[in-house]
């Protein structure tokens, strides 16, 4: 085979691989072709061929990168999620709700964490399944959500009356194991040995320090799980008033009046502590220098560590 035929054959091969979706193979063939042409100065139209091949290589390299690092699986349609639940769930006839557990596990295994979490949460009403379902939320969450969000999820369970103290303790232990010691230290909501659950206290207005800012994860809305930090505008005992700038409309909309927010971190000049608040009122400011911003009142319901 002469040089020209060899080049033609290599181009045909590379194009066939590309058309078959064999991107890496196409790329490798084009690279060999590039070497062949570069090392042979007698080839006609050498420069124009090289430039075409280089642009082909660049295109294929991009596709190859995407292919080799696919990231998280995409969120499927509701129909596809139901099919996965149906097709891959298993059922233990001896255990009430176990089919639902199997379905939720299948969804989680297929990377549909958000939907799986909802399904696991629906099992919290079953005494036999609650601990396992919550454990699965943590276990699969480790693969799909940031540590901070996992700690926030656990923080919410602390004030969920369906969980017994024993269950909370076991889940805390599990979270510590999953996140490792460093992960727990960052967490105000996770109990450690020197920070036992009994530290959670009821609120007395006089005990509350002056709070300058609060931070928490948005419990709902399109930015659910995202951490926000807001400055305290005014404080009266356990009641805090916050101003949310107009750019934070999403944050404002995510917090419904009456919503309880767990795992809130309170910053004061002398200490940082955590607890639970409820949104007592919220409104848009319609007059004055802060017109267009939002005002929100929070009430501290519980302090978990101080």
């Amino acid at each position, binding site marked *: 085979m002469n040089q020209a035929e060899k080049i033609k*054959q290599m181009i*045909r*091969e590379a194009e*066939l*691989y590309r058309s*078959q*979706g*064999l991107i890496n*193979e196409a790329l*490798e063939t084009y690279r060999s072709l590039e070497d062949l042409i570069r090392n042979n100065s007698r080839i006609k139209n050498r420069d124009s061929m090289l430039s075409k091949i280089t642009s082909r290589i660049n295109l294929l390299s991009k596709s190859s990168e995407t*292919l*080799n690092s*696919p990231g998280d*699986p*995409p969120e*499927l349609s509701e129909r*596809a999620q139901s*099919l*996965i639940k149906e*097709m*891959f769930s298993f059922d233990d006839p001896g255990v009430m709700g176990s089919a639902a557990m199997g379905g939720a596990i*299948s969804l989680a*295994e*297929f990377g549909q964490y958000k939907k799986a979490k909802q399904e696991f949460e629906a099992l919290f009403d079953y005494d036999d399944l609650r601990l396992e379902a919550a454990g699965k939320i943590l276990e699969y969450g480790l693969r799909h959500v940031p540590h901070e969000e996992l700690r926030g999820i656990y923080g919410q369970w602390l004030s969920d009356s369906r969980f017994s103290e024993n269950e909370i303790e076991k889940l805390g232990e599990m979270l510590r194991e999953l996140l490792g010691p460093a992960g727990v230290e960052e967490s105000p909501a996770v109990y450690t040995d020197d920070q036992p659950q009994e530290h959670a206290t009821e609120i007395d207005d006089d005990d509350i320090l002056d709070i300058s800012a609060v931070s928490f994860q948005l419990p709902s809305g399109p930015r659910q799980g995202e951490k926000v930090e807001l400055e305290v505008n005014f404080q009266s005992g356990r009641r805090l008033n916050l101003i949310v700038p107009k750019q934070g409309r999403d944050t404002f909309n995510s917090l419904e009046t009456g919503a309880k927010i767990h795992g809130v971190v309170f910053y004061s000049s002398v200490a940082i502590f955590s607890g639970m608040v409820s949104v007592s009122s919220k409104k848009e400011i319609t007059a004055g220098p802060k017109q267009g911003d939002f005002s929100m009142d929070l009430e501290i319901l519980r302090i978990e560590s101080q």
Partner: protein
Amino acid sequence: MAVVNLNKREIECKIVYYGPGRCGKTTNLEYIHKTYKKQVNGEMLSIDTDGDRTLFFDFLPMGIGQIKGCDIKVQLYTVPGQVQYRSTRRLVLKGVDGVVFVADSLKVRREKNMESLRDLHENLKSMGLNILRIPLVMQYNKRDLENTAMPLMPVEQMERDLNRQLKVPSFPASAVDGQGVGTTLTQCLKLTLKHLHREFKWAQG
């Protein structure tokens, strides 16, 4: 695991198309869907694809009618072939009754074929199944490229690479034009139903 209802005389079994990425598993199912309309029970479902690359799985339900007094239903699945979707492959393989291993005849895919067969072996093992015992059929796909100047492996070489120890039925095929697709499936079904008969003694007469 097949659902065998001896009272209703019904069997539902699961056949999984396995193989490296881009070897033609989905094309096999598409051809079956298009050609065996009478036997196909519903729509072919492709659960999410990236372009024409399977990310999750394809599913095709079939009813092949009565065999030895039993109504036979078959669920055909494909797995995503790319290496990184290992856990998805394991999920789809769960409860499998028969496997079609689709190998790519292109020379450049030789290693990928072997890698994928090893992956199948390991995944079956992790489920307590033995690749030497499970109903398995080998398909050497893309033989249509023999008519072009593309570097293909001879079938004999593929047999040596993939089937020397397994010694399972193997078929050259071209899934794009359907050649060998039906034969492969029929053979896999035969093996699967025989295997299920040994276990459940479902066949009459």
